[in-house]
C-alpha cells in the first residue's frame, strides 16, 4: 500500500502543481511552443524506436505510458485520486482479448470493445466515487476495483488464474495483417499518439477550463452555477476510457490478458509512474512510465530486489524532483510541458 498512501499525501500538492503553469494570459499561448516541440520530438521518437529497440518492449512502454497519462488526466487535471484504475485497464484487456479470441473480432474492434467496457465501468465507479472527496473517493475506487478483481478471478470468461492466453492479433479492418510485432507496432504507436493528442485537447478545451477552475476552488464554481459533479464524472469516464484503450492494446501486444492487470498493485504502479514523471503535465507520465518499465525490464536480473530498486528510484525522484521529472523541468523552462 506504500505507493497508494504516498500518492494520497500528494493529492493536495498535486492539485497545486497542476495549475502552476506560469501566469500566461492564455494557457494555449504556452501550450503552443513548449508542448508542441516536445510532441513533435515524441512523434519522431515513435517513428525511430522500432528500428532501434525491440518493438514489443516499446509497445509495452507505450501501453503503460498511455495508461499513466489517462490516470494523470484524472489526478493532475481533474484533481481526483483513484486507486482503482487497474479495474479499467484490466477489464479492457480481458475484453479485447476475449473479443479477439472468442468472437474473432478484428483488432480495431477488439480495442474499441475494451475501451467501451472501460468507459462503462468508469461511469459506474465514477458515479459512486465522486460523491465523496479526497481519501474517501480513493477508498471507494479501491474497494470497487478489488470487487472487480474478484469477479475476474471467478468469472469463466477471464480464465481465472490462467488468464486468456494465445490471443490472436488478427488483421486490421480484416485486411492489414498485424500479427508481426513490427506491423502491430504502427497500430499501437498511432493509437498512443491519438490518445495523447486527445488528452491534450481535453485539457485545453472549454471543459478543461472548467476542470481547472473546479480544482482551484470548487465551492466558488458551485456558487457560479456549475454542477461540478457532472464535470467530475465526465473526466472520470474519459480517464477510464483512455486507460481502457491502453489495456486493450496491451492484450494484443502480449497476446495475453491476466489477473496482474486488474490487481491493486497495478493501480499503485500507475500512480508511481505519474508521480515520478510529474503530475499535471502532459508529458510527465510518459517519462514516468519509461523509467518504471525500463527499470523493471533492465533490472529484472535483480529478481525480487527490483521492487527495492523501484522504491529507491521513487525516493530519489521525490527528493530531487519534487514535481516529478517533467514537472521540475517545466518549472525550469518556465512553460508547461
Amino acid at each position: 500500500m506504500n505507493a497508494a498512501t504516498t500518492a494520497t499525501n500528494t493529492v493536495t500538492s498535486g492539485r497545486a502543481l497542476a495549475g502552476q503553469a506560469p501566469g500566461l494570459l492564455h494557457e494555449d499561448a504556452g501550450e503552443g511552443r513548449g508542448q508542441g516541440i516536445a510532441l513533435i520530438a515524441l512523434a519522431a521518437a515513435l517513428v525511430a524506436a522500432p528500428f532501434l529497440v525491440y518493438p514489443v518492449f516499446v509497445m509495452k512502454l507505450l501501453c503503460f505510458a498511455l495508461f499513466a497519462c489517462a490516470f494523470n488526466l484524472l489526478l493532475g487535471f481533474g484533481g481526483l485520486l483513484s486507486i482503482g484504475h487497474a479495474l479499467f485497464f484490466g477489464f479492457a484487456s480481458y475484453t479485447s482479448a476475449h473479443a479477439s479470441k472468442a468472437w474473432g473480432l478484428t483488432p480495431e474492434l477488439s480495442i474499441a470493445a475494451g475501451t467501451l467496457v472501460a468507459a462503462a465501468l468508469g461511469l459506474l465507479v465514477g458515479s459512486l466515487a465522486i460523491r465523496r472527496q479526497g481519501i474517501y473517493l480513493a477508498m471507494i475506487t479501491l474497494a470497487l476495483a478489488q470487487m472487480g478483481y474478484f469477479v475476474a478471478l471467478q468469472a469463466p470468461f477471464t480464465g481465472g488464474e490462467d488468464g486468456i492466453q494465445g490471443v490472436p492479433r488478427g488483421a486490421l479492418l480484416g485486411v492489414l495483417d498485424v500479427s508481426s510485432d513490427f506491423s502491430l507496432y504502427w497500430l499501437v504507436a498511432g493509437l498512443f499518439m491519438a490518445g495523447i493528442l486527445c488528452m491534450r485537447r481535453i485539457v485545453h478545451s472549454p471543459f478543461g477550463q472548467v476542470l481547472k477552475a473546479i480544482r482551484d476552488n470548487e465551492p466558488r464554481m458551485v456558487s457560479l452555477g456549475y454542477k461540478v459533479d457532472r464535470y467530475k464524472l465526465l473526466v472520470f469516464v474519459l480517464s477510464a476510457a483512455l486507460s481502457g484503450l491502453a489495456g486493450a492494446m496491451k492484450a494484443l501486444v502480449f497476446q495475453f490478458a491476466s489477473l496482474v492487470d486488474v490487481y491493486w498493485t497495478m493501480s499503485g504502479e500507475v500512480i508511481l509512474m505519474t508521480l515520478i514523471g510529474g503530475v499535471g503535465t502532459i508529458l510527465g507520465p510518459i517519462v514516468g512510465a519509461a523509467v518504471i518499465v525500463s527499470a523493471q525490464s533492465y533490472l529484472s536480473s535483480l529478481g525480487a530486489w527490483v521492487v527495492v530498486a523501484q522504491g529507491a528510484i521513487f525516493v530519489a525522484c521525490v527528493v530531487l524532483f519534487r514535481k516529478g521529472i517533467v514537472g521540475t523541468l517545466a518549472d525550469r523552462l518556465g512553460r508547461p510541458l
Partner: protein
Amino acid sequence: MSDDIILEASGLSKRFGGFDAVGGVDIKVRRGSIHALIGPNGAGKTTCFNLLTKFHQPTAGQIRFDGRDITSLAPADVALAGLVRSFQISAVFGEMSVLENVRIALQRRHRGSSFDFWRTERTLRSLDGKAAHLIEAVGLASHISRRAGELSYGRKRALEIATTLALDPKMLLLDEPMAGMGHEDIDRTAELIRTVSTDRTILMVEHNLSVVSSLSDRITVLSRGKVLAEGAYADVSTDPRVVEAYIGVPHA
C-alpha cells in the same frame, strides 16, 4: 421605495447537532435595495447566507426568491436562478489569470452546462471582450493577465465582484466584502458596491458599521441565531437591545 420583495425567508432554521445556529429567522429583502445583515460573532450571519444560497439545507423554513420557492433547489440551481453569493474568504481562482476568472463565469452564462471537451479553448476568446469590459469596470484593467493569486486582498475582492457580475445576477449576497481591507480598499469597494447596486439587489454581511451606515437602506440585526431588530440604520443603532448585544449589559 416599493414593497416589491425579491427574497423572503420565513422561519429559517438550522440545527447542527443540538445547537440552533439559526432559529426561526424571518427576513424580507426589497428589490433594488442594499440590505445589511449585522450582528456579533456567532450570531449566525454566515449560516444564514449558506442557507439562503442552499450551501446548507435548512432544518426548517421556507425561502422564496423572485416569486419562486427555492427551498429545495441545489446550490448551483440557486445561482442559475439569479441569486449569487460571494464568500468570506476571498473566492477567486488563484491559479488562473484575472481574465480567466471572469471568463469562467461568462462561460457559464453564455455556454450553459456545456461539456465540450473536444473543442479548443480558443473558442472561449469570443468572451474576452466582455470579460475585459467587466474587469475594467472594477478597476483591474492593468492586472488583466496577472495570476489572480498574486493580487492584493482588495483587488481579489474586486475581481470576485467582477466574476459575480459576469453572471448578471438579479441579487448578490456579499459575505463580509470589506473584511481584512485597508482604508483605500474599503472606499474603493464601497464605491463599487454602490455602482453595482443601481440595478440589482444586494444583501451583505458586514462588520464595518460605517460602511453599513453609509451603504445600506435597511439593516437586520441577528443575535444568537434570531432576528433582534430590523429597520433603518438610525433606528437600529439606537435600539437598546442592539447596543446590549454588541457592547454587553451596562453595569448597574
